[in-house]
């Protein structure tokens, strides 16, 4: 009888441990796909030298593997090559202000696909540089002195993944697991030419 009782307790503990394994590694993933939903054909005719009015069609993807419900914000920043990128080691985002953002509440293991269609509306020449003064993202038009690049080379979009941190009651760009800081961002480069698309 005593044997049966001890066996029951021990085996129950083992069964419980097996049924409730420790949580797996927590992470977010963020990616960009080209016009056909693959990691290719990012630009019309595969030419990253974009003309005014030429529409670029991407799909952004976000995957939540944090093991919990997450309030996710994808911040879109438009930069040139001189503005700093996000720093993964310190978990600092790029200092540039976001131009646009997408927000969604995601359950664990959910993948979120969002269309990102954009085109250059206007460019102004400033000496040797080209100043991007008009941009359309998903039919929303942005006007102003957005970003300059020498000869129109090396503009880039940076996509940063932020999430709502309930402890700090604010959006956060990085999180820590096993004493290691993690952050998720991706970027894609393009050049601009001050001619209009046909």
């Amino acid at each position, binding site marked *: 009888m005593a044997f049966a009782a001890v066996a029951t307790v021990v085996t*129950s503990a083992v069964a419980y441990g097996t049924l409730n394994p420790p949580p797996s590694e927590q992470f977010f993933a963020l990616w960009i796909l080209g016009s056909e939903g693959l990691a290719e054909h990012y630009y019309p005719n595969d030419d990253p030298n974009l003309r005014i009015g030429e529409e670029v069609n991407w799909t952004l993807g976000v995957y939540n593997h944090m093991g919990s419900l997450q309030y996710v914000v994808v911040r879109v920043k438009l930069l040139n090559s001189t503005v700093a990128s996000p720093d993964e080691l310190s978990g600092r985002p790029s200092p540039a202000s976001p131009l646009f953002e*997408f927000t969604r509440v995601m359950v664990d293991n959910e993948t979120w696909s969002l269309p990102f269609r954009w085109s250059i509306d206007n460019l102004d020449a400033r000496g040797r540089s080209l100043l991007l003064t008009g941009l359309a993202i998903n039919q929303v038009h942005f006007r102003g*002195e957005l970003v300059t690049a020498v000869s129109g080379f090396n503009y880039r979009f940076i996509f940063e993944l932020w999430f709502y941190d309930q402890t700090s009651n604010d959006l956060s760009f990085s999180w820590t697991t096993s004493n290691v800081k993690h952050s998720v961002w991706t970027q894609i480069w393009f050049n601009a030419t001050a001619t209009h698309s046909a």
Partner: protein
Amino acid sequence: MGLASRGAQLATGQTSEDPTGSARQAFAQLAGIYRSGGNAPELVAKLNVALELIQEARSKRLDRDQVSALALEEKARVAISEVLGEIPAAQEKAQRESTNRTLMVLLYVPAVVALSTFIFYVALRTGRWYEKTKLFEMRIVEKREEKD
């Protein structure tokens, strides 16, 4: 980048009437439900609709269409209020389900383990009984061999 910053503030900044704060409050409560083992997919979907409306309102504001922006924000606010109103019932349901799950683990697992232990015990006894029978058979054979 000066004007870009201004544009960005317009695109992502919150006005005093921006319902983002209450959306985050609703999220925090929903996250609590999921943490306790429950789920509320219909409320998450409704909150996502509200977040899309907020995004749309910001786009309208960028196009200087204040009237549409305000209307969209009002719609978002209503959707978030509905979510917040349905959260207590979802919390209660999650609590109930969590209690049921704990009871299942506390009762069901030991019961199954006790049953399997009993089956193992019976099998062991049967095995021993079978071995003993075999042993007796062997002794009988031995005795017969001695007689021979």
